[in-house]
């Protein structure tokens, strides 16, 4: 597993832990109310688990496991995948700032924009690796 996949997958696991900790507190609060302000964290729970865990893990595994080129560089445009990693995580935190921390609609918009950028950069990296064994 390449170093960048290790970073991305470890980040995904951390988001999983963060997301389910918030989720467990919310579920417990549903059963035995103890802290109503917890509901403010619902968007963070969703964002951490959908984008931080599921999407990020998928990208990390794809970077590792998609077919590699026969010649160097085996994984083309690795820098694009790194930019995708940075943008995705920036996006997640801006979305959480815009929702849970109510930093404003433009912060939320910028976060979503960063996430779109992350996907585009990752696609630019991965597109050429989505091939058969014959390279077609």
């Amino acid at each position, binding site marked *: 597993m390449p170093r960048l996949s290790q970073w991305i*997958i470890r980040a995904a696991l951390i988001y999983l832990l963060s997301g389910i900790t918030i989720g467990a507190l919310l579920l*417990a609060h*549903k059963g035995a109310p103890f802290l109503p302000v917890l509901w403010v964290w619902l968007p963070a729970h969703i964002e951490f688990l959908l984008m931080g865990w599921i999407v990020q893990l998928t990208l990390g595994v794809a970077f590792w496991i998609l077919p590699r080129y026969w010649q160097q560089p085996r994984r083309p445009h690795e820098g694009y995948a790194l930019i995708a990693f940075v943008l995705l995580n920036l996006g997640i935190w801006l979305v959480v700032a815009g929702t849970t921390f109510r930093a404003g609609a433009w912060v939320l918009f910028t976060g979503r924009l960063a996430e779109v950028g992350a996907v585009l950069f990752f696609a630019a990296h991965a597109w050429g690796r989505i091939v058969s064994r014959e390279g077609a």
Partner: protein
Amino acid sequence: MPTLTRWYIKSALVYLAVALILALLLALPATVNLPLFIRFMTPVYFHLFLVGWVTQMIFGVIYWMFPIITRVQPRGNVQIGWLSYALLNAGLLLRMIGEPLVATQSAAGLGWLLVVSALLQWLGIVFFVYLAWPRVKEKYRGG
């Protein structure tokens, strides 16, 4: 494919089927006389789908395909894997029953079901991350 992975993936497929059947019921028009219990199961549907299906499928594949640690104990402590599987599924099933019960019978003092469900699912995932973390690494090359 390791036995634990087979359990994770088969369970994930069952949850997917149950989640979609539930989605089908929830999509029925309000004029259809369903038990009130079912009408309160939208959050259960989301979690059967995202925890029962997506996350559990991912866990099964991670346990199977991530780089091994050593030849002697390739996938770490399998007992922790089974504990994680049992806790996660017990917690999710408890939520499936408990959440609509709490919503429809709020005076019955059943809230503890959700507290226990939350704790079981949380522990199940924490144990899985503990098991998976050392396998996020370079390919095993012996030694």
